[in-house]
Each structure stands twice: as structure tokens, then as C-alpha cells.
């Protein structure tokens, strides 16, 4: 643990993404460490979601590198990256609506297994996957609605299901794209506790709008403005940064 403290789990080097003439991501170099909740904040259009999509493999960068445990993963497809240990949740809820909560999460847990194994195993008899799914469901606090159909859940519960599905893939890195979007105050409190717990055994990248929430839960903050890193460091140092106050926080 100690000797790994300085090796980032996930690292970007001079990451760049251009959409035609628009530079959505400019020369971004950030590092996520184990047991650390790293929040990325920034005004609308700052390139936060683009960054998540680059890290998850949904978009290919124009230039730059993405390293997972020091190994290059820049060219890997989304599913290979998830298998390598980078799991992401979506800003707009993206789940299997007609399936039950348990089936949603079990499907996520199944992804790592081989195709040959899948062909010869009865779904209803697979205890290992069912258990893995139930562990993830319990962790996000959805045990009570385990057998409900995902499409019938409340918005907040669906956001929690998103997180359970990312957890079930057994990741090293969690990329959570606005997990609080559209949630109430009370649900927000619960998610804050959950995120802090998750940061104890994963590297967590959190994209979030709510500044109070971010300052409360984040260990490290990166401020993106127009695709570039304006400031990065501990919550306190970023809060005190004059440039940040002027460019972003001052707007409040």
C-alpha cells in the first residue's frame, strides 16, 4: 500500500480532444489515486463529460495518453477498459429498464466471465454471480427493492442502481458522472456517505455540479474551464485559489 501511494491508478497525460475547431479537452493531465475521491468541477461546457467519455473509451482522444496502473489503455475499447478495471456510471440513467434490480446488477457482474461459461450455465442456478450482485445491491442500499423492475423505481433509486452496476464489474476506478443529478436533499446525503465509503477501496472520479456537495466529500479537486485544467489540488487549496474564485466560484 505505502509504496504504491505515489503511483496513480489512473492517469492522463496531455489529453486532447478536438471536435472540428472546438477543443473540448485541452492538454489535461490528471491523476487518480487509490482511496481518493477526486472531483472534477467546472461550468457548463467545461468538458467534464467529454473527459469521462475519454477515460471510459466512449470517445477516442485526438492526442495524449491514458494510463491504468502505469499501462497504456488509450486504444482500448469501452468493454476492454471496463474489464481492465475502469467502470463508469452515466449522467443520464442508462440501465436495463424491463429487468429487475437484481438482474440488472447480475448482468453487470456476468460481463467478466467467458462466453463458453455463459453458454453452459443456467442463469437461475448461478450462485456466485447472484451473490456478487447482492453484495453490490446492499452496498448502495437497494436490498429492499431487489426484485422490483428497474423501470418502476424512483429516479433516485435508479441513480443508485447505476452505481451498483458499476460496482458489480469489480472495478479499480469508478467514474461517476453526476450521480446526484435530479436527486433530493435526503437522497443526496445518502449518496455522500456512499461515495466516501467507496473511496476507501477504489479510486473515484466524481463529476458534480453541486459545489457544497463537492467541497464536503472530495479529497482532491480539479477545476476545468473551457476544456483545460484551471486548478488542481486539495479541496482547501482550490477553494483559496484566486484564479478559481475569479473564473468560476466568483460567478455565484
Amino acid at each position: 500500500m505505502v509504496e504504491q501511494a505515489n503511483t496513480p491508478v489512473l492517469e492522463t497525460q496531455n489529453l486532447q480532444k478536438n471536435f472540428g475547431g472546438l477543443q473540448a479537452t485541452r492538454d489535461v493531465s490528471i491523476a487518480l489515486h487509490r482511496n481518493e475521491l477526486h472531483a472534477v468541477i467546472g461550468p457548463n461546457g467545461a468538458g467534464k463529460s467529454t473527459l469521462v467519455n475519454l477515460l471510459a473509451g466512449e470517445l477516442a482522444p485526438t492526442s495524449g495518453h491514458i494510463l491504468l496502473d502505469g499501462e497504456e489503455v488509450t486504444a482500448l475499447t469501452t468493454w476492454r477498459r471496463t474489464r481492465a478495471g475502469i467502470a463508469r456510471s452515466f449522467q443520464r440513467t442508462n440501465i436495463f429498464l424491463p429487468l429487475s434490480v437484481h438482474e440488472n446488477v447480475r448482468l453487470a457482474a456476468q460481463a467478466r466471465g467467458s462466453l463458453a461459461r455463459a453458454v453452459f450455465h443456467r442463469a437461475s442456478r448461478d450462485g456466485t454471480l447472484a451473490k456478487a450482485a447482492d453484495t453490490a445491491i446492499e452496498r448502495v442500499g437497494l436490498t429492499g427493492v431487489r426484485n422490483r423492475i428497474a423501470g418502476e423505481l424512483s429516479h433516485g433509486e435508479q441513480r443508485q442502481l447505476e452505481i451498483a452496476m458499476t460496482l458489480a464489474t469489480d472495478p479499480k476506478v469508478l467514474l461517476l458522472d453526476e450521480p446526484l443529478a435530479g436527486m433530493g436533499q435526503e437522497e443526496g446525503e445518502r449518496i455522500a456517505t456512499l461515495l466516501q465509503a467507496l473511496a476507501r477501496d477504489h479510486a473515484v472520479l466524481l463529476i458534480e455540479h453541486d459545489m457544497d456537495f463537492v467541497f464536503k466529500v472530495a479529497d482532491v479537486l480539479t477545476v476545468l474551464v473551457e476544456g483545460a485544467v484551471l486548478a488542481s489540488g486539495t479541496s482547501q487549496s482550490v477553494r483559496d485559489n484566486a484564479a478559481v474564485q475569479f473564473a468560476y466560484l466568483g460567478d455565484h
Partner: protein
Amino acid sequence: MIDVGNQTRLLPHSTAGWLALVAFAIFWAILPWFVPLYYIELGTSAMIAAMLALSMQLLVGATGLVSLGHGAFYGLAAYAVYLVSPENAAQPIWITLPIAMAVAGLAALAVGMFSLRTSGFFFLMVTLAFGQMIFFVFHDTKLGGGTDGAYLGKPLISAFGATLDLPRRQKPIGIYYVALIQLLSMYIGLAVLLRTLFGRALEGIRVNEHRMRAVGFDTFKIKLTAFTLAGALAGAAGHMWALHRGFVNPEIVGWHQSAEALLMILLGGLGSLHGPILGALALTGLSEVSQLLTERKLLVEGLVILAVVILLPKGLAGIRVRKDHAADGADHG
């Protein structure tokens, strides 16, 4: 409360549903004792169509892939039977069936490698194009008798030296049962497959493929496996067609074979595995009846299909005795 989860599954939801299927299979098995020879042969044709539609359901209903090239694998397999059958002797079924399925499966693997990189409308068009390429191989070359087609020397079913060389009046009965056994095996095999983790992965792809990739599934490989398997099963149907008719011609490779199988699935119901079987039997029966009643066969067929699609959105398989309503009534009363 309605269990929506089961509605995404293609298998019967209750013991009563399974019993109804078994009863229907038994009825179908004793049918040859009560009907004239002509209808036995018609029943065999219907079962072969049902096998093709059933194999296609693995793509359409289970995985959400609509292909217009599926019929080509069926026709290709029928030609394979013709090509490996000698002039004057019967080729044993344990040679013809595996060859027909392997040829169709390999062709599906090759077509799937390219076509599955696209999706939706483009997938439809690419599979159509590949299917027509296979069609023109048989249409424009002398490989299988060209446009005229060709007769099999001895379209007999034989295995391990024993030949099903029945007298003229009984031969269709033998073929009928061979087709029935294959159709039942295919249904049971697919029912088992859909209950595995692989079946769940197909369901996930149908519901939300993007999410499947995001949680780490190699969806291309899973779809290619399903596409290849469906092709091989279509090959089993084509094999049976060649033995049943003893004749192959380019028409059985054409795109309308796929369209007809799709129509059967639509008629029978997208949401169940037995739907395509019901659809195939219904369409074969409908075609027969409308031919008897009128000169405008296709018009009658079209109107009936239109009526079914409008009135029964879940197809023929969606018809059931409304038990839920009775229970609701009791609650309110």
C-alpha cells in the same frame, strides 16, 4: 402485480403454458393418423417453415437483430445436401445434416463478421446484400442446375445403413416425423439456451446494447455467436426442405425466404419462442385456405396479416384466456 420481468422472456410463464405446448405437440404428433396424405405433406412443409422462423427468432426476438440474409443460409444448406448426394444412392442423414448445418453456419459466421459491425437499418441492408450474393451464385452458375434448379438423385432419409425407403403412401409420414423430431429438438435446445447466462446476455443486448458494452461485454462476439448458431439452425431447416421436396432451385435462397420468416415471427409474436412456430403453421394454413377460396391469394393473406398485426400486437402467441381479469373482478366485487 404484473411481473414485467417475465414478459421479456421468450418462454412460457406458467405450468399451464408449458402444458398447452406439450398438448399441442402431442396433437401434432398424432395428426397423420387422421388426415389425408396431402395434408401430411403440407404439415411437413409447415414444420420446415417453422424451423426457419424459429432459428430466426434467436436473432429477432432474442437478440433484437433483424436480418434479411437469414433465408440465404437456409437455401445454401439445401444446395449443400444436393451437392453431397450421389446420383443413385441415399446419403445417410448423419452425413447430410452436419454438412448442411456446418455450411450454413460457416456462411453465417463469414457474413456476420462484416454485417454485425453495422446495426439497425444498415444491418438489414448489408445482410440483404450478402443474401442476394449467395442467391446469385446459384442463380447464375451451373453449380446447382442454374435457374432451373435440380433434383436430388435419391432424396431418402437413411442412417447407419438403414434407409427410410417406405412405400409411396407411407414415405411422407416418415418424413413428417423426422421433421417433427427436429422441430421439437430445436425448440427444446433454444429454450435451454435462453435460460443460460448466454441467453441473459442476448436479452441484455436486445434491451440496451450500449450499457452491455459499458459493463464489459464483448457484444460483437456474443452477437456473432448467436448469428452463427441461428445460421446453422436455418441450415437444419434447409436440409429438411431438400429431403422433403427432393428438389432445389434458386428461389429457396432468395431474400423473400427471410421476409416470409419475419412475417411468421410477426404473425406468431415477437415475444415468445413458440410464436414463430404458431406463425409458420398459421401462414401455411392461411395460404392454403386463401388459395381454395379465391384467385387473389396474396390479397387475402395480406388482409389477414394486417388484421392480426393491428388486433393482436403480441401476435397469435399473445392470445390467452384472461385469468387476470377474473381475479380483478373478484377483488372489486
